[in-house]
């Protein structure tokens, strides 16, 4: 069977690619398009390291088939900073050491950004439940939760 042709938008840029019908978005991002910021921790939607947004909705890119993003808009960790200007979450994660090995960090950041876009004033519990789909084995989550809460407070202050 010949490959499928997909036209989509990634981080605001028009993108075309060829894929097999059963390839995941994550596989295409990493192995076809060279966007390796999204990580494969499990391939079964349990770890969240491959988190992206699809038309603004937070999804695990390992669970979305690549042909499904035809005509849709996705954003990945590579689209989070604007040029050399980090997103406030990225900056806060650095300042508050909210990462150790960093493998879960892209997924956590994409998920946290999606949270703050929906809820600019989350409680600690809101953050913990929203991020419950992003496994981190290094940090014990403490500094991640604090960084998200502080970023939210800063962004509310700036708004």
């Amino acid at each position: 069977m010949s490959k499928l042709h997909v036209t989509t938008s990634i981080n605001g840029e028009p993108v075309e690619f060829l894929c097999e019908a059963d390839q995941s978005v994550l596989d295409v991002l990493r192995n076809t398009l060279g966007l390796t910021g999204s990580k494969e921790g499990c391939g079964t939607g349990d770890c969240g390291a491959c988190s992206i947004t699809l038309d603004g909705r937070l999804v695990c890119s390992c669970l979305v088939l690549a042909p499904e993003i035809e005509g849709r808009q996705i954003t990945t960790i590579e689209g989070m900073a604007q040029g050399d200007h980090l997103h406030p979450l990225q900056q806060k994660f650095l300042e508050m050491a909210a990462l150790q090995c960093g493998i879960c960090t892209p997924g956590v950041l994409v998920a946290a950004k999606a949270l703050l876009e929906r809820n600019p004033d989350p409680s600690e519990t809101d953050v913990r439940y929203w991020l419950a789909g992003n496994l981190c084995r290094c940090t014990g989550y403490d500094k991640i939760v604090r960084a998200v809460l502080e970023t939210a407070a800063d962004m509310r202050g700036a708004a």
Partner: protein
Amino acid sequence: MNAIDNKWIGRRTIRPDGADKVTGRAGYAADNSMPGMIWGKVLRSPHPHAMIRGINTARAEALPGVKAVVTAKDIVDFPLDKSVMLGIQDMRWMCRNVMAREKALFHGHPVAAVAATTEEIAAEACKLIEVEYEVLPHVIEIEDAIMADAPILHDFLRHEGKPSNIAATMVNKLGDVDAGFAEADIIIERSFKTRPVHQGYIEPHACTVSCTADGKATIWSSSQGQFMVRAMTSLLTGIPQSNIRAIPAEIGGGFGAKTIIYLEPLAVLLSKKSGRPVKMVMSREEVFRGTGPTSGSMSTVKIGAKKDGTIVAAQGTFYLQAGGLPGSPLRGPVGCSFAPYDIPNVLSVGYDVVSNRSKVAAYRAPGAPLGAYATECVMDELAEALKIDPLELRLKNTARPGTKAAYGVVFGSITFEDTVKAIRNHPHYSAPLDRAPAKGVVRGRGVASGFWFNAAGESSAQVNITEDGNVTVTTGHPDVGGSRASIANVTAELLGIEHKRISVLIGDTASIGFSNLTGGSRVTFASAMVVTQSTEKVIGQLKERAARIWKIDPEAVVWSDGAARPAGANAGQFPPLTLKDLAAKANEMGGPIGAGIQLTTVGADPGFATHVVGVEVDVELGIVRVLRYTAAQDVGRALHPDYVEGQIQGGVVQGIGWALAEEYLFDKQGRLDNASFLDYRMPVCSDVPMIEPVVLEIPNPKHPQGVRGAGEAPIVPPLAAISNAVHDALGKRFYSLPMSPPKVLAALDG
């Protein structure tokens, strides 16, 4: 916390590798690709225990797109009768772990590997390999493996003269334990079980390897030691170390399990055979089935004390799962369990038990949590029986400088009692406890302590001054949790310059001197030591250059605040020469400026921790929730406090998972039943509270900055601390982990 007036050490600076990691640009093992690259896949045994009578790879090799197939016969054999050690690893077992040789020893044991133009073709080819197995009876659990009629995994293993699954015994002895128990007014003896748990790093094992026609191999992989990758791959493939360049990718978590290799030698052999670069990436299922975990255990601990709480004797018996090949971390429970206490009579014995599971790998303070679980739970019962506060019981028996530990050392400047006092004095310990806040909910509080040896060992560093007067520092240690940030702080402090002017890099095996593993809580200790000595050499060079420019004696020059200055009025009047000034003049005044050190570091005094935890038990659902957690530890000096706190917080949460939810479950066919993150339940963000670290900084006198290893001690106390808290809540003691909802409900019903 510390009175030392430092400008950079102890500052929460931004890590040198941070921007790459928050933007997705950091290169982890699976992120690499090469021109012409093909994909490797592993065929794994469908049986937990089987003789391999033959392997026919002809059909796989004939599949279009297949470029190479390897089996055990391509790997260097290490005969069973002669041990060849690389560090603590016996190559006899490593060669049989990366590829089954005579026998498949666990479900998921590699039996062949294929490289093909796509992952799909490689997977298809694996199915075409015909393996003739003679299936043997299998054994999974310790209690079954040590029975007289158990299936024997290795007929060359003998225990007490008979074929056995007990591969090794370790004994630590101090005094006369029988005489000690005879003096005791009270003796408590209990038996405990723990299940194997996986290290759970989010990055699966991966590598890319390129072998060229001249016999050279370049390996790009993530590990806890590129020099280990080079040495082990060399031993298993026969390629000399000088022809292997191991490049450390960013590592997405290891926790001990990446101190050995799985894929690299297979990828090297596939690349060599095919003449193409080969990439291999494990699936999460392969990680669960084929790598790690740490040992499950069966332990008995007996402690005898006087009425006043003075412990007179302690005895521990620890059976640890090794997996299919020998090598469980016996030293952990045998050596660590009683080390916090000054006990005159100790007998601590460990047994290494093989069974048809994946070979265990190191996990954060390997084995120590298993022993501390048993000992610290018995300590809690002893305190309860004697009506002594559990922390006071620990203080009464605390090991001090000069105490002889059963594992053989006389302690130097140890600080165990400081950690106990830190918890005793913490508001958490004395906060009012609402024992029954709602119907069906009860709360309790528990404490426990722990010990870890801490390691030192070989490390190398190179500090170079760039032509424009900035600094690059290279070490040989993969950075698992922010060690580059600590090194930047140390170098900035010594040179008296802004930390942002310092670039900290991790060298590959061709660009930096030998450095032992990132493990044993040694990296910050050892790398700060070699970086300090290298930087001091550089400062010596800088002072010499200034002296030459000023035409004065180098002894008359001092280095302070980033510049050479005359030592005093007698030295003469000269304006300071900064790093930039001296770098600009380097070539005319003696050449490039830089220095390196290669050293076997010593002086890593052990680490102690004491924890208090508050839990809530839902008696309807059997769920135990951790509500509050406070962890005290002496780290000597926190070069970068965030990453020290992070080690404590991360270690504690791994301990919470171990205590409450994580376990390897096997079906009757000897197959792991929960090989996914859905069914293997690691703590998620909503499972845990904030973890409060109490970081004590009592400088280690044997280290230039006072550093004591910090990474491993935090996982030692949680298992017992949580058990003791659950007992406090329910009035019932659990003697096996995890305290998962089904077990809690069964205990409440029973």
